């Protein structure tokens, strides 16, 4: 009997276990080793913004390019507020919205009556104090121009587009403020896309309509508006369009922008990321004009010599001795590209070496930011993705997406820097930020809750904006530096902040104008790894002055004012 039992049990075991093919790893196990960095706190913080893309079916190109927004402290209460842009058109009931952050961390809608609650084909936002009165002002780029709003300092804004001289007819996309001539007044850069004509119908070979490729239309030139400062009577004089005289009148089509010192001479240059065309890098000639040197410096094409579809832009420094890094997002069929400035001043495509060509999934990247999310001392990368033409691959099975938009939806990506300049794709383990399909466009960043970890807000075409609270396990200490020029009553946009702890050094920028259609935290953020304090903080102010400030304990926000540090000799580069 016992033998019969053995035969029986053996046969059953063989059938049920032994003969079954090995199981594949379940999706739940994939990414189990990835650190979790974000929690979707959209509802917790009361953010109820849904992007309006306008009527569907006509394939009106501006709607697929999406809208972004800005993190800004418009009421000077020390907390970052939010401004989110709509794209439903001038007759839409959907209006741009301003959210004030309350003391409890929740956002309240203060749009009504603020003057910023406008309707239009809104694209991006730039934030900066244009008249040096201590209150940040807002520029909104739009299809068909853009609008400038002066902050009255009482929670309301005044549309000064016409009087300020920044009216322009083109399709504005990313925009930012930069003091390119070092006169103390923030100038405005607006990147323009294509000379779009809605009468053109586009689509693939099967005849089914889709959004047009940018090559169907001629690109348009970016605009540079010079801030004329105040007159002798103290009246602010607005801007003048110096696009032609500054030598930057060259057709794009531009989507992304970032201003920084790309050639190491201490003066701010302008990088315009062009869609399906070589990028433009406008090198500052220090006399109010620029010369285009993207090809010369190695950032016009990718490392394989191909012209890519360049969209979102972010900047940073990877390690102590590394040169400036530039990261630009691209189409699903391309790779997002990481360039790094080498010893001789030329940029080199490091995408493959950095492990960024070998990602778990791909996407058409737009908003992006290079920042140390887990405070381990090495900047990481976040990218929001979403297609611009219908996917020809397998469609996501996610429910809740409008069938019209489903073929454009993709998942976001997160890349962890291992500290040696190589990145690990941790998207699979970060379901909150990367798990859902959406048509991602803007990525706004900032430490909204003051815990030293950078949170992000993603905007999506025809979908809700999502607030992702950084809940990454702290792998080190942090420091946030607010660099202020009291003489100008504002943050020192363009300042380069370098902190030193023992033999290690980190560099960060006061540079809210990065990503795509977005403006972020104007403070310089540092993940310090194990360093519990920093020995010195050096600030290279935008006007060329360099100062060193005494060190401080980590894990705090420090406010440093120009003129209060010890002046250091800044070698003329």
């Amino acid at each position, binding site marked *: *009997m016992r*033998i*019969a*039992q053995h*035969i*029986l049990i053996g*046969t*059953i075991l*063989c*059938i049920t276990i032994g*003969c079954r093919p090995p199981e594949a790893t379940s999706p739940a196990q994939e990414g189990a080793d990835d650190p979790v960095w974000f929690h979707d706190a959209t509802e917790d913080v009361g953010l109820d913004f849904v992007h309006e893309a306008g009527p569907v079916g006509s394939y009106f190109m501006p709607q697929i390019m999406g809208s972004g927004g800005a993190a800004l402290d418009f009421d000077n209460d020390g907390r970052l507020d939010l401004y989110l842009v709509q794209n439903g058109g001038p007759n839409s009931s959907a209006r741009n919205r301003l959210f004030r952050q309350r003391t409890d961390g929740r956002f309240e809608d203060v749009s009504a009556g603020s003057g910023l609650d406008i309707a239009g084909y809104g694209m991006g936002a730039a934030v900066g104090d244009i008249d040096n009165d201590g209150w940040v002002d807002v520029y909104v780029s739009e299809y068909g121009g853009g609008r400038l709003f002066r902050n009255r300092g009482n929670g309301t804004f005044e549309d000064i587009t016409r009087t300020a001289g920044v009216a*322009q*007819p*083109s399709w504005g996309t990313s925009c930012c403020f930069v003091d390119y001539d070092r006169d103390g007044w923030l100038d405005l850069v607006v990147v323009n896309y294509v*000379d779009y*004509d809605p*009468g*053109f*119908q586009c*689509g*693939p*070979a*099967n*005849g*089914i309509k889709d959004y047009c490729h940018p090559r169907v239309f001629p690109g*348009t*030139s970016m*605009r540079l508006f010079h801030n004329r400062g105040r007159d002798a009577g103290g009246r602010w004089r607005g801007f003048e*369009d110096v*696009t*032609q005289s500054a030598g930057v*009148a*060259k057709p794009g089509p531009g989507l992304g922008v970032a201003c920084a010192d790309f050639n190491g001479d201490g003066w701010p240059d302008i990088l315009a990321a062009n869609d399906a065309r*070589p990028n433009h890098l406008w090198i500052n000639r220090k006399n109010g004009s620029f010369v285009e040197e993207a*090809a*010369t410096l*190695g950032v*016009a094409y990718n*490392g*394989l*010599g*191909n*012209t890519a579809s360049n969209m979102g832009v972010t900047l940073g420094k990877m390690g102590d001795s590394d040169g400036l890094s530039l990261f630009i997002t691209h189409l*699903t*069929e391309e*790779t997002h590209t990481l360039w790094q400035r*080498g010893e*001789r001043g*030329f940029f*080199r495509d490091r995408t*493959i*070496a950095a*492990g960024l*060509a070998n990602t778990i*999934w*791909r996407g058409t990247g737009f908003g992006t930011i290079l920042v140390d999310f887990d405070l381990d001392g090495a900047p990481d990368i976040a990218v929001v993705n979403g297609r611009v033409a219908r*996917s*020809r*691959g*397998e469609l996501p099975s996610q429910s809740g997406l409008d069938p019209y938009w489903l073929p454009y939806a993709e998942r976001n990506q997160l890349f962890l820097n291992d500290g040696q300049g190589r990145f690990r794709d941790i998207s699979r383990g970060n379901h909150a930020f990367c798990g859902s399909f959406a048509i991602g466009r803007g990525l706004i960043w900032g430490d909204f809750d003051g815990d030293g970890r950078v949170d992000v807000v993603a905007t999506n075409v025809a979908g809700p904006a999502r607030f992702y609270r950084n809940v990454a396990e702290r792998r080190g200490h942090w420091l946030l530096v607010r660099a202020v020029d009291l003489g100008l009553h504002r943050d020192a946009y363009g300042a380069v902040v370098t902190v030193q702890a023992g033999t290690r050094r980190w560099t960060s920028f006061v540079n809210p104008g990065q990503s795509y259609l977005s403006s972020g935290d104007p403070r310089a953020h540092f993940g310090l790894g194990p360093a519990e304090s920093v020995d010195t903080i050096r600030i290279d102010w935008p006007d060329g002055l360099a100062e060193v400030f005494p060190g401080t304990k980590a894990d705090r926000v420090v406010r440093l004012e120009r003129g209060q540090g010890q002046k250091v000799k800044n070698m003329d580069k």
Partner: protein
Amino acid sequence: MGIRFRRWGLAVGAGVALAILAAALGVWYWQSRPSPPPEPPLPDLAGADQEVVEIINLAREKVLRAPLSAKAWGQLGEVLLAHDFNREANRCFQQAEALDPHEPAWPYLQGLHLATYDPEASVLCLERAVRCCDERQNVPRLLLVEALLERNRLDEAQSLLEQVHSVDPGNLRTELGLGRLDLLRQNWRAGLTHLDACRNDVHTRKRASTLRAEAWNQLGEKEKARDEQRRAAELPEDQPWPDPFYEKILTSRRGLRARFLSVDYLIQAGRLPETLQLLNETLDKYPSSLEGWMRMGEIYHRVNKLDRAQACFQQAARLAPDFAEAWFRLGCVQAQTHSSDAPASFRKAIRWKPHYAQAHYNLGQCLKEQGQRDVAAEQFREALRCRPDYDLARKALRELEDATGQKR
């Protein structure tokens, strides 16, 4: 009794085990039996061109008639891929490959499609394709090389490049690959040598110059780097590599879009009579094709048959009265024939596209001819406001201001 009982128990146990085994074998056979071929995929054809629908249905019927024919499945895949139904095409190629695992086209075309969004899976397909290729079929091999270089699998890429080089030493795609491989390994001088061979070919010259510039930069040769970069910036985009697998697919394209692609090809080849014939046939079949009338008008304009060009643009403007481009083109032809209608056409173009820089410029020129200098100057200014890089408008405005002694 005890022994008999044990024997009986043994027999029952063995019998049950045999029965279970037989059942298991049955289940195994049931599960692993050759499954009948799946239903050929049918994409969502809503909004698709009728000619496209017809050719897809035709290819689909062939599969239904011969469901075990790899060729029929592959041809359906090709027709679907030709019309950008890639997802469904891929399923057909998978089925074709299952039925004929020795044909390289099926895994290759899967790899080509997957490369755009799942490169890892694409590499697997290309590897299967390469295994089926004979030593002269290098296109799949070289596409695989490019995928491997992107994945940093340099040794495997090198091995394939050497294979191709041994049978086809003059292949410039191989030279470009070897150059890229050297640069990835920071062998700058060796890379320069390989890339030098690619500097003058229409498929490689821009990329070769860009890569050479990087190599010179890394070697500290600034001037040489600048020269190469300048050269790269002036060159048009490299032409795509000839791909016999994909070119075969393009021949099965049908419908309006396919016709326009052929028109583009004929224009590029300078074959204008054939272009006009194709456009005439197209407009007979698709008389309300706005793009057809616009293209026909452009061809007539180009060969200076202005009356016919004007008629085409007028027809386009009738079909789409809010299409600025039609009015603009009509205005251009009218201006050339000194028709007094030209300004009105440009004004209509501006009405539908207020920031149409060229329309403002052309209107300015018309008004200048009519002696309306102030209004013409306004139009030139408007053109410049729309496009600050518009040198023609700047020159025209300057001339006008010089002539009138005005400066604004």
